[in-house]
């Protein structure tokens, strides 16, 4: 049952996602597409169905009210105005919360559910159930049949030999209509079921069977009078005929003479009877067209009720038994005329052949073929092995070139193919881990609704590129930064509706969330059409908090980047939306931890765009291989802006050991990587080395001084923490083509380490004035 629950909740997640995306599509004009509306309805219906099985009553109750409204939409009786859609979206949120509570425990705000239920009820015109019973049986009386409500025990447990003692004797008149046969109901089954209730004596009336040539293959000619002696109440007897209610004439009366006229012979039945008579009259023509009796039988053989009836009648005539027989044994011996004991079309009542297991699997795998669930560990293991393969291949290439073989030799071409294949395999494995960003994006509409409601703003969220794929780990770690940035965009970026209108903008603010692949990375934009960054204010705050000197001259871009500094928060009061003690510095750090970058572009009055650029995978990295004090290090290419050859004149001592390098009218701190990592104690000669201009934490620039650049390459990341231990300034390790282990530099840590004891970036900025 636990695994069933798990399946149910997984499915709920899928249905909730389907529901939300469907509603959003309807909102953006998809209301005319019946398939979308149907899918939305089905999602709620499915959740309700499963919830019922797990007795999750709150969920069932709410889903029912929700479903009722969606049904109205589906039937075109309710138009999806923006108000309606908003209610539906809110309801989807409530439903999602109810699912979560059902799964994880906790509570949902009853008032919210109540309000939402009432709104839904108002839309559908059906009052919301007050709780308790799921739904009334309203509307059942007029349809003529009721659901199975009797708790019949499993039939094996039922003691059918029990002699009814002083039970009631019922007389049942039963005349099937053709529809009973065409819906695959069978009198013999009904008689068998009756025999379980007590002692049955059945008489078959064959008088209505016409001559062969007049028989309608789809007709119904037999009727039964059944005497049933049972202790069971009449309802139990009647329930046997539940499925054929309306497909037969049925009268049940007990010995006392009180007749419960089962079927008030209403117009409908009259009409049906007339139809049946009509068909019986028409039938002979159809058959006469075919003078060949065999051919006529052939057409019966395809499937019809009469076939069975005929055989039953013939059997009776041949054996000459009275048409009356005690039923329990009769049923067992097939003596009771079984009008359709043999299924038309399948002569043997037994299943025609044993189900072939191979074919059965087909049914199960047809679905499984589309997706398989694989333990992430296995994929990671494979990923790791492919990493080894890449390294091995690089080593082979290197050996080969060291051996002096020409590029055109067979070895070399073979190795080229090997390299290509290795890359393909690597990409293939990475693709297994890749998932569309949709799973994160689809959480955002709800967030937007909530933030918009809390800030009294009107917001439209547009998402693009949801199918863009990126490594699963990246996706998982994207959710928090994105959530925060979207909150910020609405809370700080967008203006209040009245302000927007006053500025000639649409009342409704726009937040655009988009993802694309660009040069081997995924780029995510969070754009708003709000007021843009208020630079004067940002600057004032930064000065007030001591982040910059009042005299510092900053470009617009530098001012914008101040918001990423730790300790910066533009909200004068911490609203409960964007506040929560998390600043943009945390966002930036978490993106950088993924090997990504954040940048801003903002235009006053037009809005701001935050751009995240992230690697597609965390397993491989493009790096610059450099030499520092005879050690080989790898610097992630993503953090390098440019490389430069410093001239001794450009480097200035700056108190203690600190040095800065002059760069296009600006000064940036020069970080001696060899010293920072403790590879050497003496400062390196800048003139003899190479400087890598890097962007680090907080958007500041630094120049990393290294001895030489060996080249650029893709390296497979090996966790140092997992294999060795944490080393300050080092992010991870890799194995190079020649088999040497190289350390991957943690740029931020090295720069931060160098800053300690320095005046730091702020001082540099101040000095730059």
């Amino acid at each position, binding site marked *: 049952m636990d695994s069933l629950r798990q399946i149910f909740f997984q499915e709920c997640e899928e249905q909730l996602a389907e529901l939300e995306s469907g509603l959003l599509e309807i909102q953006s004009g998809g209301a005319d597409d019946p398939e979308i509306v*149907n899918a939305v309805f089905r999602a709620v219906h499915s959740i309700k169905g499963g919830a019922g099985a797990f007795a999750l009553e709150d969920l069932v109750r709410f889903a029912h009210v929700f479903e009722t409204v969606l049904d109205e939409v589906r039937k075109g009786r309710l138009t999806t105005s923006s108000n309606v859609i908003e209610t539906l979206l809110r309801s989807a949120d409530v439903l999602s919360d109810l699912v979560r509570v059902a799964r994880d425990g906790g509570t949902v705000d009853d008032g919210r559910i109540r309000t939402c239920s009432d709104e839904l009820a108002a839309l559908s015109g059906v009052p919301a159930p007050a709780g308790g019973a799921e739904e009334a049986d309203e509307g059942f009386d007029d349809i003529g049949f009721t659901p199975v409500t009797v708790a019949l025990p499993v039939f094996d447990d039922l003691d059918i030999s029990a002699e009814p003692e002083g039970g009631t004797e019922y007389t049942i008149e039963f005349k099937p209509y053709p529809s009973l046969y065409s819906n695959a109901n069978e009198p013999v*089954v009904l008689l068998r079921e009756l025999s379980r209730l007590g002692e049955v004596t059945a008489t078959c009336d064959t008088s209505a069977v016409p001559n062969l040539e007049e028989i309608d293959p789809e007709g119904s000619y037999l009727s039964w009078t059944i005497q049933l002696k049972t202790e069971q109440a009449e309802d139990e007897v009647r329930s046997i005929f539940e499925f054929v209610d309306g497909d037969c004439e049925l009268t049940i009366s007990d010995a006392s003479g009180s007749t419960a006229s089962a079927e008030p012979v209403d117009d409908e039945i009259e009409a049906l009877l007339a139809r049946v008579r009509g068909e019986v009259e028409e039938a002979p023509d159809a058959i006469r067209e075919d003078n060949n009796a065999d051919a006529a039988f052939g057409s019966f053989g395809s499937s019809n009720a009469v076939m069975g009836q005929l055989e039953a009648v013939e059997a009776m005539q041949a054996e000459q038994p009275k048409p009356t027989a005690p039923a329990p044994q009769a049923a067992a011996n097939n003596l009771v005329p079984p009008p359709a004991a043999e299924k038309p079309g399948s002569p043997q009542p037994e299943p025609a052949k044993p189900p072939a297991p191979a074919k059965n699997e087909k049914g*199960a795998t047809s679905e499984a073929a589309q997706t398989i669930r694989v333990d992430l560990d296995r994929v990671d293991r494979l990923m790791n092995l492919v990493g080894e393969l890449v390294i091995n291949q690089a080593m082979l290439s290197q050996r080969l070139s060291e051996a002096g073989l020409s590029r055109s030799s067979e070895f070399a071409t073979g190795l080229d193919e090997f390299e290509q294949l290795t890359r393909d395999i690597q990409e293939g494995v990475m693709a297994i881990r890749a998932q569309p960003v949709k799973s994160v994006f689809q959480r955002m509409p709800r967030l937007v609704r909530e933030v918009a409601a809390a800030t009294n703003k009107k917001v439209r969220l547009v998402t693009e590129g949801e199918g863009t794929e990126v490594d699963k780990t990246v996706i998982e770690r994207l959710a928090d930064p994105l959530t925060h940035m979207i909150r910020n965009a609405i809370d700080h970026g967008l203006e209040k509706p009245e302000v927007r209108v006053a500025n000639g903008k649409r009342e409704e603010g726009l937040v655009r969330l988009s993802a694309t692949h660009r040069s081997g990375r995924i780029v995510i934009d969070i754009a708003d059409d709000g007021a843009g960054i208020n630079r004067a204010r940002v600057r004032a705050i930064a000065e007030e908090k001591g982040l910059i000197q009042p005299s510092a001259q900053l470009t617009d871009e530098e001012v914008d980047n101040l918001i990423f500094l730790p300790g910066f928060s533009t909200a004068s009061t911490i609203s409960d939306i964007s506040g929560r003690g998390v600043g943009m510095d945390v966002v930036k750090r978490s993106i950088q931890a993924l090997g990504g970058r954040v940048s801003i572009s903002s235009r006053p009055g037009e809005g701001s765009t935050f751009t995240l650029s992230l690697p597609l995978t965390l397993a491989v990295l493009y790096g610059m291989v450099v030499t520092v004090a005879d050690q080989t290090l790898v610097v992630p290419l993503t953090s390098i802006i440019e490389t430069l050859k410093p001239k001794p004149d450009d480097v200035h001592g700056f108190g203690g050991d600190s040095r800065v390098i002059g760069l296009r009218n600006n000064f940036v701190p020069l970080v001696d990587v060899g010293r920072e990592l403790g590879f050497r104690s003496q400062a390196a000669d800048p003139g003899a080395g190479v400087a890598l201009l890097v962007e680090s934490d907080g958007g500041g620039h630094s120049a990393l001084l290294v001895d030489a650049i060996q080249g650029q390459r893709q390296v497979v990341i090996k966790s140092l923490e997992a294999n060795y231990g944490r080393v300050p300034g080092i992010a991870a390790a890799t194995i190079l083509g020649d088999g040497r282990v190289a350390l991957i530099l943690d740029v931020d840590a090295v720069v931060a380490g160098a800053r300690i004891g320095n005046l730091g970036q702020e001082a540099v900025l101040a000095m730059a004035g």
Partner: protein
Amino acid sequence: MSKTILTVDDSRTMREMLLLALQEAGFHVLQAEDGLKGLEVLQDQRADVIITDINMPHLDGFGFIEHVRRDSTHRAVPILVLTTESDAEKKNRARSAGATGWIVKPFHPVKLVDAIRRVSA
């Protein structure tokens, strides 16, 4: 000889539930996730009883039943529809389409087996 039951439902939860209950009762189970898939299964396999949901993508329960009833090989197979109590109108439509009986969701395994027994010889 155990009977073969084809279950047609787009909800994985419901399919699994039916599978558990039916296997427990000794039936052989075939599965399909919508009406179209159900017809595909019936192209090369036989079922003694079919249990189908109504609301499904691609081909819903009504359409599925109508197709089965027009198929000379399978037209006499009893078909039970899965309904909820509120689906009264659907139940009627299903019967017009050719459904033999119905099972009210949420079902108790005993009721499920009971309903199957009541339509199969």
